[in-house]
């Protein structure tokens, strides 16, 4: 059990509670880099599970013998114009999630899409793509996707072709059309597609009695409902982080879970680089530790149910300062006796209010998706009072202003079914049986519907409850359209014919509307012609496909007037300060998962194995508690607890996470799937069982009991793995060169050279002859001030470099294969620590320790400074990894590609070797991308332009924290950054000369508030 409070004086930065307490487990990970041998003890059942995760169909490889196999070359009979066989091509398309499109560019090799990147022209991608966007390509090739229409009747399951379904559907819907759609209902996911919206309107016209419902389990619907309260109608708020100097996030994570997160993160990070000596300042108030919270200059942990009270406190304070003149403070708060427990909160609010008032018009307040509409209403009012509206917050029309909230619609659907008003239900995507709130009872209600048709990628939980399952085409196989967050019309174009058949929602709805079954392509073209008429439609269409979007189709900006606030009582229901000390765990916070989203990506191995940015957990969700709450309950990480909420209960393992609000239990939604496929079935615990329509964000009054069980539930976290220790535990205490450097903006301004003297070492002499370099010296710079720790880089790398998925057991053994990892360091006290994220990948050291110990010269230096791995030479001694101070080398303990299906093989990047068992691998600085540009430039007899070579991690980074380039080119951005005053090299004292420089993290705390106190001595001891 780690200590619950108090710093270990020897540790400024710690990776986890175990690390801080120096438990035997943490020490063992440092002493033994390749721990375990647990594989050898695996029983047969676990081994089977492992192979299943690998996607094993155990097809035997052909007896190829020693001769090379006879290979065929199959040229086109008719080569499409402009197509060069073997050359990658990129197409613009878009992914629609929660009714918001993110523009993407997808790389395709000879017709096989292999990599998703952001579309630089798209206003809500700006070239970046989040982890989910990038990993969605794995779903395309998922062998568990459904391939046939399935009819379920009287307990029987009949696989059918398309023809019987079409015959059935034609008859059914023509009958319904005759009856004006009486008894017909459509349940859709949130839609933004103008084509679907138009079809919905047509449905309302041709079948006036048909009903339409939309449901998303996880969304920012509350924000929208808040605008209804504040302005009397639904508007879509747009936050301008680039213009805001002071930002307050109330239980919000705009940089990770917001539909516009990529844009917001970019705008925010641009205000953190302190080029002009100015930085924005971020305050965060939240119950869970979010990615946004980790970036905050001041973070107040507060239970989600107390955030409203804090917002009221803030209103009162602003009113006192005359900033909010609309209400009078006439309540008890003034008389409230000063209370020690309340002090941190009142100080926080006080300093915050002062900052907000000072930066009138340049501040920004926003609330998160979990917070009820009433908090959002207050936030809009505060922004109005601070004159932020029109400056840092703008509003636009909402695409479907008349849409009720998702929660009310799913409730209405279940009620309508129970009333017997619905005989035919068409479910367009989604998985409502799994993810509808528990009190709706949708699964039971569905039994009353005579005909239910579920269009879905997988034959999932909802499909089995319906009478028909119809395979859906993946978005990379579909023609469609969608709206970006600001309404920009974005085209979804297919990269490949549907692999397993499959129809799109547009086609399905077309079946409902008339028997012709229009092609989605025609519908989308017609929609474009309607929205943006052109004299030359063919040219306009081609232009749109090329760009991926239609300029000038944003929703108009609106200037809604805030309704005068009603005379509500300004006495907070709960006093936030007291609650911060309150240890009874009674609040369950339902969080949107960073990996599986609402559960729909549960069968995606990349996402399951991608560590959560904050907890670093893979392959699971947990009941996440603060150290104090865990102590009060007498539980530790891995113990199981039972959560009971209004009669419903769920047993889950505990994960103790520093920085959580005491009394909050954070539970990620979307796990515990039972019918998603071989990867995701049975992974984690289904928190939807506790979620109700009344309390979709957080619920109070939970009962928590410890479950007596022998042993611990195994959790696979990557936070302790690959620890960087320069010289072992003992001397670490004396000689630890700082891996992370950070300072306050004021300190940095007072002494800009402070990072240059961080590491103390004698003059560095090399034992080796220094390498000679050719015309290029590739290098990287990573700005810790800009890195938000989202981990998109790790997924980009996985997709680009054919990095395998290894499964939970292997992750627990420390065998995760990611070439780039984001180290999460805590600093400060365990209750409320600060967090610094640090992406770590191969630094391509000029005096690389790995090269010095390889007995077979399998890792060598090239003339451009790359530390290259020669897989064919590697015999698997793993000496290199032992000697690597950064722990960035990964060993193939198994052939993780055993039994891949032919469809899965289509995903492999042909430019990168697929590694087999027994070889070491690591980051190559995306050597294939370097070479592609180099060859092109030399073919054209021109120099390589700066910024022309972009490795996958840097390409997708939402905040552009990673910069790659040529040090030999003095004008290159990377050369400039490496000379920046903030630049430092990790473990410089070892004289290994890493080619990657980090730029120290700057913070901009309010001098009025207590900030970092203990460690202000930046190595000058």
């Amino acid at each position, binding site marked *: 059990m780690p200590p619950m409070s108090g710093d270990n004086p020897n540790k400024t930065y710690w990776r986890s509670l175990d690390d801080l307490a120096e438990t035997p487990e943490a020490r063992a990970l440092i002493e033994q880099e390749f721990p375990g041998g647990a594989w050898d003890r695996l029983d047969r059942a676990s081994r089977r599970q492992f192979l299943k995760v690998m996607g094993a169909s155990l097809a035997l490889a052909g007896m190829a013998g020693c001769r090379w196999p006879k290979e065929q070359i199959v040229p086109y009979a*008719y080569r499409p114009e402009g197509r060069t066989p073997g050359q990658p091509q990129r197409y613009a398309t878009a992914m629609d999630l929660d009714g918001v499109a993110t523009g993407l560019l997808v790389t395709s090799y000879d017709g096989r899409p292999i990599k998703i990147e952001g579309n630089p022209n798209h206003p809500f991608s700006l070239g970046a793509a989040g982890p989910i966007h990038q990993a969605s390509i794995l779903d395309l090739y998922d062998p568990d996707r459904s391939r046939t229409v399935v009819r379920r009747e009287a307990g029987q399951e009949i696989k059918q072709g398309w023809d019987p379904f079409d015959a059935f559907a034609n008859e059914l819907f023509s009958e319904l059309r005759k009856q004006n759609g009486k008894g017909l209902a459509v349940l859709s996911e949130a839609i933004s597609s103008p084509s679907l919206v138009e079809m919905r309107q047509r449905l309302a016209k041709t079948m006036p009695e048909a009903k339409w419902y939309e449901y998303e389990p996880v969304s920012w619907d509350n924000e929208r409902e808040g605008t209804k309260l504040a302005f009397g109608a639904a508007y879509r708020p747009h936050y301008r982080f680039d213009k805001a100097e002071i930002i307050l996030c109330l239980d919000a994570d705009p940089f990770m879970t917001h539909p516009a997160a990529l844009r917001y993160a970019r705008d925010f990070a641009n205000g953190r680089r302190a080029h002009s000596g100015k930085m924005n300042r971020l305050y965060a108030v939240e119950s869970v530790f979010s990615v946004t919270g980790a970036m905050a200059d001041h973070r107040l942990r507060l239970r989600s149910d107390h955030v409203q009270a804090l917002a009221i406190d803030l209103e009162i304070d602003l009113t006192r300062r005359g900033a909010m003149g609309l209400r009078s403070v006439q309540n008890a708060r003034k008389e409230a006796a000063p209370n020690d427990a309340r002090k941190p909160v009142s100080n926080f609010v006080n300093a915050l209010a002062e900052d907000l008032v000072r930066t009138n018009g340049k501040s920004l307040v926003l609330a998160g998706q979990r917070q009820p509409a009433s908090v959002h209403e207050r936030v809009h009012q505060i922004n109005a009072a601070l004159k932020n509206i029109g400056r840092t917050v703008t509003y636009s029309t909402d695409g479907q202003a008349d849409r009720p909230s998702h929660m009310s619609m799913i409730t209405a659907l279940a009620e309508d079914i129970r009333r017997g008003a619905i005989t035919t239900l068409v479910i367009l995507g989604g998985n409502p049986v799994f993810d509808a709130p528990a009190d709706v009872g949708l699964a039971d209600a569905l039994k009353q519907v005579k005909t239910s048709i579920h269009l879905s990628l997988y034959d999932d939980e909802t499909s089995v409850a319906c009478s028909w399952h119809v395979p859906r085409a993946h978005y990379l196989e579909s023609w469609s359209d969608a709206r970006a967050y600001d309404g920009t019309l974005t085209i979804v174009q297919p990269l490949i014919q549907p692999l397993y058949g499959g129809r799109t929602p547009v086609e399905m709805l077309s079946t409902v509307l008339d028997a012709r079954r229009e092609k989605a392509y025609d519908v989308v073209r017609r929609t474009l012609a309607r929205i943006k008429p052109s004299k030359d439609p063919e040219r306009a269409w081609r232009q749109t496909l090329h760009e991926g979007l239609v300029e000038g189709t944003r929703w108009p900006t609106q200037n809604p007037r805030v309704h005068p606030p009603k005379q509500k009582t300004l006495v907070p229901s709960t006093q936030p300060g007291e609650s911060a000390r309150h240890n009874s765990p009674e609040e369950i916070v339902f969080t949107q998962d960073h990996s599986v989203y609402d559960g729909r990506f549960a069968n995606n191995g990349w996402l399951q194995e991608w560590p959560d940015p904050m907890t670093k957990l893979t392959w699971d969700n947990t009941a996440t508690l603060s150290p104090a709450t865990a102590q009060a309950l007498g539980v530790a990480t891995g113990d199981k607890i039972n959560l009971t909420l209004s009669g419903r209960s769920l047993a889950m393992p505990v994960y103790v996470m520093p920085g959580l609000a005491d009394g909050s239990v954070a539970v990620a939604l979307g796990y515990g799937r039972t019918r998603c496929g071989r990867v995701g079935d049975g992974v984690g615990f289904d928190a939807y069982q506790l979620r109700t329509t009344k309390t979709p964000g957080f619920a109070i009054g939970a009962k928590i009991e410890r479950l007596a069980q022998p042993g611990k539930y195994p959790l696979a976290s990557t936070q302790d793995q690959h620890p960087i220790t320069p010289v072992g535990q003992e001397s670490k205490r004396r000689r630890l060169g700082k891996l992370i450097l950070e300072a306050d903006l004021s300190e940095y301004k007072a002494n800009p050279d402070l990072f240059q003297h961080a590491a103390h070492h004698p003059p560095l002499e090399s034992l080796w002859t220094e390498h000679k370099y050719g015309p290029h010296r590739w290098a990287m710079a990573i700005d810790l001030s800009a890195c938000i720790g989202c981990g998109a880089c790790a997924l980009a790398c996985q997709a680009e470099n054919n990095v395998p998925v290894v499964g939970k057991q292997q992750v627990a053994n420390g065998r995760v294969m990611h070439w780039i990892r984001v180290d999460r360091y805590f600093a400060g006290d365990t209750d409320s620590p600060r967090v610094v994220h640090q992406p770590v990948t191969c630094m391509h050291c000029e005096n690389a320790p790995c090269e010095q110990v390889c007995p077979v010269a399998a890792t060598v230096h090239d003339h451009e400074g790359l530390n290259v791995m020669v897989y064919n030479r590697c015999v698997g001694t793993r000496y290199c990894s032992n000697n690597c101070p950064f722990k960035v080398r990964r060993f193939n303990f198994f052939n993780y590609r055993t039994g891949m299906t032919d469809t899965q093989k289509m995903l492999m990047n042909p430019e990168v070797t697929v590694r087999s068992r027994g070889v070491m691998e690591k980051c190559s600085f995306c050597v294939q991308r370097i070479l592609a540009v180099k060859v092109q430039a030399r073919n054209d007899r021109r120099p390589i332009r700066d910024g022309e070579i972009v490795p996958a991690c840097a390409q997708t980074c939402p905040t552009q924290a990673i910069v790659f380039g040529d040090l030999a080119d003095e004008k290159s951005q990377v050369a400039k950054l490496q000379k920046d005053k903030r630049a430092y090299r990790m473990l410089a004292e070892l004289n290994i000369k890493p080619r990657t420089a980090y730029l120290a993290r700057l913070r901009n705390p309010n001098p009025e508030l207590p900030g970092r106190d203990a460690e202000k001595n930046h190595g000058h001891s």
Partner: protein
Amino acid sequence: MGCFSADGIAAPVNPFVFPKWSNLAVKAAPPLLGAAATYAVAVFALAASPQTTDVGYQPDQPVPYSHRLHAGELGIDCRYCHNTVEIATHAALPPTQTCMNCHKHIRASSEKLLVVRESYGTGMPIEWVRIHDLPGYAYFNHSAHVRRGVGCVSCHGRIDKMDVVYQAEKLSMGWCLDCHRNPDPRLRPLEYVTKLAWIPEEDQLVLGKRLREEWRINPSEDCSTCHR
């Protein structure tokens, strides 16, 4: 100490005396060493033999297409069919369309062209057998070589004299490196890259050196150049 005595009885193993089985080992050693040496020689000889490197590999092709006729006698430029060679990694095989550009008019009813016409009609590809086949972990880029004055003939031999194409060179790593270490004998002006029979008027080494310096050709011997 004291683990052994003069009569050798007290200690079960005397560390200073070879155990008995070593007598047998001494006797067996010469033939074993001999066998190992033979094996090593055989392995290396086999690895370098034309059979292993597939020099002369000349599989049957689905169409009796003759490079000797087209490229040699008729003098069609390599790039008429392999038109991506200067811009792409692969010198792509031509689509059936390219064949039919001429053969719609010339020998339009020849029996030898049955497969080609069938492909043209059905849109199904012709399945050619690959001859020049590098291992999957070696990444070769045609454009990088052709645009730097390495002629087709350097790797593919006198295609213009082959009725059925065969592999003329070893295509082994050592063979690649020979040229990367010393490109001078194989560089030629760009206009002669596809002229298989071209012979320089001046000394090839003088020409090669001049071109290498003029174009600043500095072939890399780094592993990362071909392997990733």
